[in-house]
């Protein structure tokens, strides 16, 4: 049984009637990682927000989304709200803006834990410290008492992962989690995502334009362009034998740059392939 | 959340409206023995020996030795008096049953102290010639005082009857025996006591239960500050205020049509005094660089003003056309003077003959490169003055005179009158008690009309005549002198009369006993009563 099944998802702008995501269907198995790949404007973010019904009110969507055989569309906003966070956990691109700038980090964390697990502050704090330490954040208590602007993007990204860890969701939706980060933080964040998946056996939907990241972690790939799904399949086969011209093109450009690099580094043990 | 906010909003709105609805309705004044009158300005400093205060308020609280009535000078705080043969000694016999509001007894000592306090601040009272003439004041016995003058001064009693400064304040209120630097309280002998004063809001006067001439029937009078005319009208309509009258400065802020409507609605009555003063434009003959210094120009202006229309349309008939500085019911004013009726052609002709030529229709006349332009100042608190000014501006344009209008506060206008910094300004005579002697005396006073009259040919001679008029004891001679003086100013067209004004009272319909005094500044509230 698929964990999540999406049939003919369509998203359009209510005012301009422009269709942003054309009939899109895919399934996500328990514990798997699905990557949605595409260049800017391909509608990949809108697609994954549509899953949790998080798009703006001016965007309409139809099509069927089944989560553990439950139709999400027929749920009330209140029921849906319960699913968010508990079942679907999101990780946003820019950690710097993802937390209320006028509150300490812990406010959001505790509010979320209180909402879903009804934990009181003490327990939340204890659990968060655990979770944060497991994503390599030291001085967790101190960090929680800071404001977003006092922390780096990589740290905030890892806090979001830690929160997901504490909530133990079924699906983590990671929207470009590495794009805004430095090379070193990128690597760390990817490491944590991989770890979380192993430890908790939760499924991941990863939205990214970075084929390197995708190839690294995803089991399946969905290639999108201008709101349409061009190709889907399991990662190795898509990368080895891309069916669509566009996929081929994407892979080729990416490999041109990195081949050059890899060739340079062949003689070294610095880079792991 | 949103629903909650909405309900919250509507609840708040509802509370606001409810608060409005449940607010206690203002007391109905119609059937009480209280009067609430509207005043444009605060009653101000009530010190009777200084000038900033409201005269109508001072008139309620303080009294003078004698009273000026239609029939002449009558006793007030002085029961009787004698004048010495040579006319320089006045002996007053005081009433014995008078107390000040603070319980202090009114006697010769109090009179002497008050007179001395006034005389010690003499320079401020220069406008009232008597202040210059007083030599001494003595206590003869407890209820007799003797006033000695340096020389004969015929308006002595008239000036003693004025609302200020020769009125009496309880000596307990004096500061170091003086009043010029402020006083400790405002205790007079009058029919009403000042009991509460909130600056720029209201002042409350209550009936003096110990008043020597009987307790006034109106128990409480409140002066409420309402700067804008239409607010007054509204307040009257609602009953927040139930009385209004032409105020101190003669500013008629209330719209006549509005009053008429109010009266027609049935709750109010309108009472007008007989002609009290003359409203006029004063031309500054002494300002040589101004065209107003030229007699022909002044005369042309006189001819160009359609006083009939002003009286009919702007005053809606409430004021009558005036043809001379004083109306003939004023003492000594019954002299035959040349009439100058509305005559545009005549005005043009006069100007043309005087050398003010016009190049085309709609342009301004010129003489020797100088344009025929003048500034007219009016009281910004008086809509009728503004309307008249605009009307006159239009008429003068027709004869080729350009008039610039400036609205200012009355104090500022008085200031201009005193410094001579004007071409033309609105003014009015001071009322029957003051006319003609005070007005004529004012021709020589810098504070008043000195600048205006300076341009009269042989002005020194003219001023001497005025001095003589006031000091002569020969009644016939005085009459002749007055005639001469009035003729001169009339011929010179310095005071361009417009209408004869009166005091207007709007009062509740059931208020009786509304009468007037000889001055436009006070009302005898003590004589009023509700039916």
């Amino acid at each position: 049984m698929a964990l999540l099944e999406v049939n003919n998802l369509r998203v359009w702008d209510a005012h301009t009637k422009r269709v942003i995501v054309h009939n899109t269907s895919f399934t996500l198995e328990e514990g798997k990682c699905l990557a949605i790949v595409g260049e800017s404007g391909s509608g990949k973010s809108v697609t994954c927000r549509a899953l949790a019904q998080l798009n703006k009110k001016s965007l309409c969507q139809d099509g069927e989304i089944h989560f553990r055989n439950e139709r999400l569309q027929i749920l009330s906003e209140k029921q849906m709200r319960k699913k968010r966070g508990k079942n679907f956990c999101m990780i946003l691109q820019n950690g710097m803006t993802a937390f209320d700038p006028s509150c300490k980090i812990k406010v959001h964390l505790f509010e979320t834990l209180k909402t879903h697990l009804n934990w009181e502050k003490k327990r939340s704090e204890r659990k968060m410290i655990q979770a944060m330490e497991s994503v390599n954040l030291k001085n967790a208590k101190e960090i929680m008492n800071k404001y977003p602007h006092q922390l780096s993007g990589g740290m905030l990204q890892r806090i979001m992962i830690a929160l997901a860890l504490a909530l133990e969701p079924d699906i983590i939706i990671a929207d470009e989690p590495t794009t805004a980060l430095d090379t070193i933080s990128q690597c760390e964040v990817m490491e944590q995502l991989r770890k979380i998946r192993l430890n908790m056996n939760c499924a991941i939907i990863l939205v990214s334009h970075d084929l390197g990241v995708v190839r690294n972690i995803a089991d399946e790939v969905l290639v999108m362009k201008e709101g349409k799904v061009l190709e889907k399949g399991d990662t190795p086969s898509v990368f080895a034998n891309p069916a669509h011209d566009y996929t081929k093109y994407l892979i080729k450009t990416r490999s041109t740059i990195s081949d050059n690099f890899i060739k340079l580094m062949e003689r070294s043990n610095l880079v792991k392939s | 959340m949103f629903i909650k906010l909405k309900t919250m909003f509507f609840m708040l709105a509802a509370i606001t409206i409810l608060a409005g609805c449940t607010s206690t309705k203002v007391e109905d004044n119609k059937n009480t023995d209280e009067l609430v009158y509207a005043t444009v300005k605060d009653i101000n400093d009530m010190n009777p020996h200084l000038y900033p205060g409201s005269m109508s308020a001072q008139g309620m609280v303080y009294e003078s030795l004698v009273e000026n009535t239609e029939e002449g000078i009558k006793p007030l705080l002085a029961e009787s008096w004698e004048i010495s043969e040579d006319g320089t000694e006045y002996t007053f016999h005081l009433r014995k049953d008078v107390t000040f509001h603070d319980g202090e007894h009114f006697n010769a000592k109090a009179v002497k102290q008050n007179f001395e306090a006034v005389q010690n601040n003499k320079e401020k009272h220069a406008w009232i010639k008597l202040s210059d003439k007083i030599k001494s004041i003595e206590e003869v016995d407890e209820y007799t005082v003797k006033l000695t003058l340096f020389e004969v001064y015929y308006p002595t009693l008239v000036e003693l009857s004025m609302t200020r400064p020769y009125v009496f304040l309880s000596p307990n209120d004096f500061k170091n025996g003086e009043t010029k630097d402020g006083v400790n309280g405002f205790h007079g002998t009058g029919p009403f006591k000042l009991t509460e004063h909130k600056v720029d809001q209201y002042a409350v006067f209550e009936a003096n239960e110990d008043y020597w001439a009987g307790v006034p029937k109106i128990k409480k009078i409140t002066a409420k500050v309402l700067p804008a005319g239409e607010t007054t009208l509204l307040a009257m309509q609602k009953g927040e205020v139930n009385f209004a009258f032409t105020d101190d400065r003669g500013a008629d802020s209330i719209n006549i049509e509005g009053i008429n409507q109010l009266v027609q609605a049935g709750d109010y009555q309108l009472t007008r005094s007989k002609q009290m003063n003359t409203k006029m434009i004063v031309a500054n003959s002494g300002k040589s660089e101004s065209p107003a210094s030229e007699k022909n120009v002044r005369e042309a202006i006189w001819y160009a003003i359609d006083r009939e229309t002003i009286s009919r349309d702007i005053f809606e008939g409430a004021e009558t056309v005036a043809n001379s500085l004083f109306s003939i019911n004023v003492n000594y004013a019954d002299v035959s003077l040349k009439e100058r009726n509305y005559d545009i052609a005549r005005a043009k002709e006069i100007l043309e003959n005087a050398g003010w030529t016009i190049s085309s229709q709609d342009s301004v006349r010129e003489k020797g490169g100088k344009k025929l332009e003048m500034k007219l100042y009016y009281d910004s608190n008086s809509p009728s003055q503004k309307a008249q000014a605009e009307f006159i501006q239009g008429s003068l344009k027709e004869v080729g005179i350009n008039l610039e209008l400036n609205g200012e506060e009355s104090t500022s206008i008085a200031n201009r009158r005193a410094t001579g910094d004007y071409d033309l300004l609105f003014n009015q005579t001071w009322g029957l008690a003051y006319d003609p002697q005070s007005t004529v005396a004012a021709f020589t006073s810098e504070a008043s009309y000195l600048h205006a009259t300076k341009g009269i040919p042989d002005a020194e001679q003219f001023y001497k005549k005025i001095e003589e008029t006031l000091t002569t004891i020969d009644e016939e001679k005085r009459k002749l002198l007055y005639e001469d003086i009035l003729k001169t100013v009339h011929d010179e067209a310095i005071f361009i009369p417009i209408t004869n004004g009166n005091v207007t009272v709007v009062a509740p319909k059931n208020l009786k006993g509304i009468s007037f005094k000889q001055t436009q500044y006070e009302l005898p509230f003590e004589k009023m009563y509700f039916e």
Partner: protein
Amino acid sequence: MRLIRNLVRDKLGITSLLFLVLVMLMGVFAPIIAPHDPLAINMPLRYASPSWEHLLGNDHLGRDVLSRILYGIRASVLWIFLALIISVCIGTVMGFIAGYYRGIVDSIIMRICDVMLSFPVYVITIAIVGILGVGLENILFAFVLMKWAWFARIIRTSVLQYIEMEYVKYARTIGLSHRSIILRHILPLTFSDIAVVASSSMSSMILQISGLSFLGLGIKAPNAEWGMMLSEAREVMFTRPELMIAPGVAIISVVIGFNFLSDSLQVALNPELRQPSKIIE
């Protein structure tokens, strides 16, 4: 260009702009289009009701209200507009000097602005009228004196913002002169900011000046001005409330026009506000 294009797309904005231009033109050409002499006194027609001859009726001196409203545009809109332009010009120059050259000049100008901005406009206007006397010109003088600081500060901020734009950095890199950078790269953009601020402060100035005229501190009789016309009408507002309608509507509609224009300019200039919904990728 983009500005105009966007503005044209915004119906409300272009309508207000056209309306205001029309009003101003009517003010300029008042002598041609006004049916009567606004100063012609005609006492028999005192407070006459509207008629074909006098479409909006007559006032307390029988003057034609319509003509006075038309001539009133000059004092109520055109002169204020002129004062606004003068203060905008002073403010622009000062703001540019401060924002572009920074340093000590900036500090001095900004401190002066701080001091000027510590006085509410009403208060200074009242003080200046108190000193120089009543008159529209004194009020306008006070406004110019006070408002430039406000514009200077806004323009400085926007200069500081635009100076950080990459194309300005580029222009500096290739060695363009300060003059051409200001004229070609910064002024056109700040100009649009100025337009927004100026049009909204225009409406507040109209309201404030009409308020002062209403208090009798403004224009001198017999010249027509809407605030004064309202003040004249107020005296008879309970017997002839209809006299308040014409000047009241005139003020309200012009002020609304400027408000709408300011809003539309803001939208036209800010692409983020333009789209009804922005898709965040």
